[in-house]
């Protein structure tokens, strides 16, 4: 059943991309139904049941790699988040894209993405998670680059793909180590085993690299703001609510297993804190509302990484709670800014204020969500941030704990500061420079129908309402969250309250809000950001240097000179033969049979013709000599009892000579010295060496047979099993028929290659002529 929920989403995606391109809205409606029923199914199967539902599809049972899904408490919570937010965003997209040509692609990829993400959160082992993890990377690449005519969108997509893809490879390495060391990658087993050791530490680092790249943790934080090149629904869903959460999900799943290791703890805390502070600082300096939110997402992800990865039970519980809070307020913020962008045509923080007149409901929803982001009572964000501070204060982790606490407090100040800046933008004075008038005109130009505005506004308002309601119902929500977090770690049992009473955490909160508000309100930090951040520039530098290095290597290893290729290839063969012969001694010449003087004379004639090919200077003569060599060999085949080979050889030679001659019509009559290198002496030396060594190797191979020849078996089986008396033909069409299949395919490709090369040459000639 769990697989059905995932496959259905992919199926809608595929259907949209293949069949419903012309009617993307219909496809979106089907997608909505599928998302809703998947969510309903998850609730029906996973809530309030005794045993956790599980399903499995064998993939590589011999290696222990199977697709396993499990619907435990955390999976229920996360899949509901994924599916419900997906529903909201898809609904929103109906109005957002309107008649955009890319909408069909969006719907298809969106559904595929939702399916992959459902797979990530339902995965019961690291291998299954890895498979869906890579799928989310690919879908996200395609979605960021949805607007494929924009160069910056394509660049951002490539950055995101390569960064998360590199992380995915690291994760795969971690999966491999864990599977070979422990024999399992199942999360539950890992938690039970509590593995440790040097190799496990390596696996931990690899898993962390996977999580950090996906969740845009320092130093991989650069790709996420770049991904904002995507349309709003993509940014809202992928880069705030779901995809970047994949890394957090991975940390949450593995932290109970690895959380006690020092490597894990320090990496998580340092990366998380750095990300939180850098993200907050950069968010504070943005003038584009969407980029402000993107950097704030980076910052919040840093906080989540610290909480979920720290390895204490209360922090894990707080992390799960904040995960929910962040998903709810961030989706509202992104979609809300998208509405303003859609209706007013601006995302500049100095011009947002106009929105509150035209879009009062959406603006209020944005205000509520921003307050939740800042952690202001009575919103849900306050409740979870309180819990986080309590967890950090209670954690007895020594230096690591103190670093985490100080970092989170600093990060929170910045969070409040950028939230206040955003609020200021929303509630401040409408810019006096006549922008309002422009916006009004633009607004009329953009103005959408009531239905469209409802579709756009509803998800924003619902999500913001959820932030408020969850805040007041904190106790109840806290109870619900116990199941998800205990499914990760049995000890992660705690509760949420709206008003915790005056304690250390509350005092810290008050100070944080006060300082943050002053900073955000008063300190003029906003600068128009440089087009590329340091991270992006470093990425580009590495990317470019890899490309140019590979180009240089190719230039050295593939010089494009035929003489050099031939010399290198034959020399390698000759050296290998020589080494073999020196090691094993010269072969015996017993196998060198001379049964008739005719054989000897034909062989001699062939040898003379071969020398002739090498020495004549006229192409035509060389081709005729070459044909003579072929016929000579055919005669030898015939004499040694291989009529099939001889027949084919004669036919091939005949055709080859004709084709040679045809091709030669457009070549100079004589050979011209094509290149100075290698000099003649080298050519002669190499040819002689190969000519002497290869026959010796052939002899050695012939006399080195130890196992009985396979042809005896073929002889006995040929008539009975394959119904043919000619064993050569039976080998070709039956015993080794696969080889023949491959050979004729190669033949076909070669023929197509010849046709196209000639065609290109002709086109060039014609162009030169005209």
């Amino acid at each position: 059943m769990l697989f059905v929920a995932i496959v259905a989403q992919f199926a809608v995606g595929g259907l949209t991309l293949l069949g419903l391109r012309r009617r993307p809205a219909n496809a979106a409606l089907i997608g909505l139904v599928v998302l809703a029923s998947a969510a309903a199914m998850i609730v029906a199967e996973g809530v309030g049941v005794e045993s956790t539902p599980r399903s499995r599809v064998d993939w590589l049972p011999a290696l222990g790699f199977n697709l396993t899904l499990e619907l435990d408490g955390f999976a229920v919570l996360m899949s509901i988040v994924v599916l419900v937010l997906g529903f909201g965003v898809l609904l929103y997209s109906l109005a957002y894209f309107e008649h955009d040509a890319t909408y069909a692609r969006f719907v298809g990829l969106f559904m595929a993405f939702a399916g992959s993400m459902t797979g990530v959160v339902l995965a019961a082992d690291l291998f299954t998670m890895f498979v869906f993890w890579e799928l989310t990377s690919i879908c996200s690449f395609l979605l960021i680059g949805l607007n494929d005519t924009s160069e910056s969108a394509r660049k951002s997509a490539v950055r995101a793909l390569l960064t998360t893809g590199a992380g995915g490879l690291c994760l795969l390495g971690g999966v491999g180590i864990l599977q070979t060391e422990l024999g399992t990658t199942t999360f539950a087993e890992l938690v039970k085993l509590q593995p440790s050791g040097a190799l496990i530490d390596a696996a931990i680092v690899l898993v962390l690299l996977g999580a950090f790249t996906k969740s845009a943790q320092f130093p991989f934080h650069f790709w996420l703001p770049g991904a904002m090149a995507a349309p709003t629904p993509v940014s809202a869903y992928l880069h705030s609510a779901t995809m970047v959460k994949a890394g957090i999900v991975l940390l949450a799943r593995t932290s109970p297993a690895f959380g006690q290791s020092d490597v894990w703890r320090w990496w998580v805390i340092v990366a998380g804190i750095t990300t939180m502070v850098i993200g907050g600082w950069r968010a504070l300096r943005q003038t584009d509302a969407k980029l402000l939110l993107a950097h704030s997402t980076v910052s919040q992800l840093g906080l989540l990484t610290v909480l979920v990865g720290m390895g204490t039970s209360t922090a894990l519980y707080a992390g799960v709670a904040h995960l929910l809070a962040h998903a709810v307020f961030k989706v509202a913020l992104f979609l809300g800014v998208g509405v303003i962008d859609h209706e007013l045509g601006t995302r500049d923080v100095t011009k947002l204020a106009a929105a509150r007149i035209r879009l009062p409901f959406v603006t209020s929803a944005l205000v509520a969500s921003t307050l939740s982001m800042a952690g202001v009572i009575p919103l849900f964000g306050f409740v979870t941030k309180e819990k986080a501070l309590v967890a950090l204060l209670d954690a007895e982790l020594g230096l690591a704990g103190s670093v985490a606490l100080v970092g989170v407090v600093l990060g929170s100040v910045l969070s409040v500061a950028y939230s206040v800046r955003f609020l200021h933008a929303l509630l401040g004075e409408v810019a006096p420079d006549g922008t309002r008038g422009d916006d009004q005109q633009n607004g009329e130009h953009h103005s959408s129908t009531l239905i469209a505005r409802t579709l756009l506004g509803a998800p924003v308002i619902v999500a913001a309402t959820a932030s408020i309601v969850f805040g007041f119902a904190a106790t109840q929500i806290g109870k619900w969250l116990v199941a998800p977090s205990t499914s990760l770690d049995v000890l992660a049992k705690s509760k949420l309250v709206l008003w915790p009473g005056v304690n250390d955490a509350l005092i810290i909160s008050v100070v944080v809000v006060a300082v943050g508000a002053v900073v955000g309100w008063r300190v003029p930090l906003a600068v128009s950001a440089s087009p590329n951040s340091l991270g992006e520039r470093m990425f580009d530098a590495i990317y470019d240097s890899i490309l140019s290095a590979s180009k240089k290597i190719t230039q050295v290893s593939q010089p494009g000179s035929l003489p050099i290729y031939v010399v290198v290839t034959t020399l390698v063969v000759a050296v290998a033969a020589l080494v073999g012969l020196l090691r094993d001694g010269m072969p015996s010449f017993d196998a060198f049979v001379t049964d008739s003087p005719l054989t000897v004379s034909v062989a001699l004639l062939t040898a003379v013709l071969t020398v002739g090919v090498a020495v004549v200077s006229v192409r035509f003569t060389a081709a005729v000599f070459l044909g003579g060599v072929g016929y000579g060999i055919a005669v030898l085949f015939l004499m040694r009892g291989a009529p099939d080979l001889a027949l084919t050889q004669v036919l091939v030679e005949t055709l080859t000579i004709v084709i040679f001659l045809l091709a030669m019509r457009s070549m100079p009559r004589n050979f011209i010295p094509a290149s100075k290198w290698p000099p003649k002496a080298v050519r002669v030396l190499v040819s002689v060496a190969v000519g002497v060594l290869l026959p010796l190797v052939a002899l050695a191979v012939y006399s080195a047979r130890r196992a009985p020849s396979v042809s005896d078996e073929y002889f006995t089986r040929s008539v009975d099993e394959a119904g043919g008396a000619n064993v050569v033909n039976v080998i070709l069409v039956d015993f080794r028929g696969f080889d023949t299949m491959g050979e004729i395919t190669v033949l076909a490709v070669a023929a197509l290659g010849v046709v196209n090369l000639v065609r290109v040459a002709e086109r060039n000639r014609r162009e030169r002529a005209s």
Partner: protein
Amino acid sequence: MNFRPSAILDELVDRWLSKVAVLVAVYVTFRGHNAPGGGFAGGLVVGGVFVLQFLTGREPHIRHRPIRRPTLLLGFGLLVALVTTVIPLVVDASPLESHIWKLNVPFIGEVKVVSSMFFDLGVFFVVVAVVLMVLLSLGARGESLVGDDGVGAS
């Protein structure tokens, strides 16, 4: 070399040699299972016919019909070979496993047909097509006999 149609050669090659050679090719192909021959050799014999026709200054043709789309023949041959490879999978045998039918043909007697014969036929068609394609593209001088999608331009 000058490729001008020559009446005597034309007559000889067209009327007699090519027909006999095609018969030989078919014979070589089908006897292959029990005696020297087979699809590859048979295909090359037909290729030889085309070379002869070409050298008498005409496009390769069979029964006065020029073959305009050798790529189609190529695909057809590959398809035949592939289908013979795959069909045993349908009846739960390993790929390319031979099946032997013994048919009673009136006046001739028992004829043994082996399924791998069809594979050999696929090879035959591929080889014929390859020879044709190479001949048509390399043999053309100045303007190609093979047009933009393998269609003869003449």
